[in-house]
């Protein structure tokens, strides 16, 4: 059981470039999340999804877009990369069993924008 997987592990982007961070979970979880973690800080929620076809903004959504066409996949899109988006990005998932839901995290994608 792989859990939550993320690709790539590391990427360097130039300002203005675009990229998609991939996230896949094999636990049949309805809820999926994207967080970013800046150095020395906790994680902040970017976007979340409560099921295929349903997404919504979190605390820091500017500069990002998401889609959820399947239960398993929840890609995060950066259209015009900016240095402020240099961070580590974590994807997470949880079951839709109620409000007390443990979230399981992927290993992260480290992004550097120069």
């Amino acid at each position, binding site marked *: 059981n792989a859990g939550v997987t993320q690709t790539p592990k590391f990427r360097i982007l130039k300002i203005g470039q675009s990229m998609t961070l991939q996230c896949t979970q094999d636990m049949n979880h309805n809820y999926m*999340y994207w967080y970013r973690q800046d150095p*020395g800080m*906790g*994680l902040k929620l970017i976007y979340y999804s409560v099921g295929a076809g349903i997404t919504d903004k979190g605390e820091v959504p500017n500069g990002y877009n998401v889609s959820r066409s399947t239960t398993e996949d929840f890609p995060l899109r950066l259209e015009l990369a900016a240095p402020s988006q240099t961070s580590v990005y974590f994807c997470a998932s949880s079951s839709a069993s109620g409000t007390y839901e443990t*979230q399981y995290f992927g*290993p992260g994608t480290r992004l550097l924008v120069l």
Partner: protein
Amino acid sequence: GESVGLHLPTLSVQEGDNSIINCAYSNSASDYFIWYKQESGKGPQFIIDIRSNMDKRQGQRVTVLLNKTVKHLSLQIAATQPGDSAVYFCAENGYGAGGGAVGLTFGKGTHLIIQP
């Protein structure tokens, strides 16, 4: 400011001693709290959780205490081992407009350092 935070950025303990990591939260409506462990270069790993209808919950070598009166959460690790070295985050469950859980609010983390 952050609704969930930790009192100390770094905690250094001797191997074999007990560790206590503290966390304060500001949202009195929060009803679910989680402790995560994050090792260098890895994603957060679930340790233990507690609901607001409980004051204490125990796991293997870990205990979480919740004091709703002062909005304080703590993680106790018994007989600390070198493998416990990591950053520990407390988090609370957030809620969306529909009432469902929509993510976690994290504190900044406490770096636990184990000295031999």
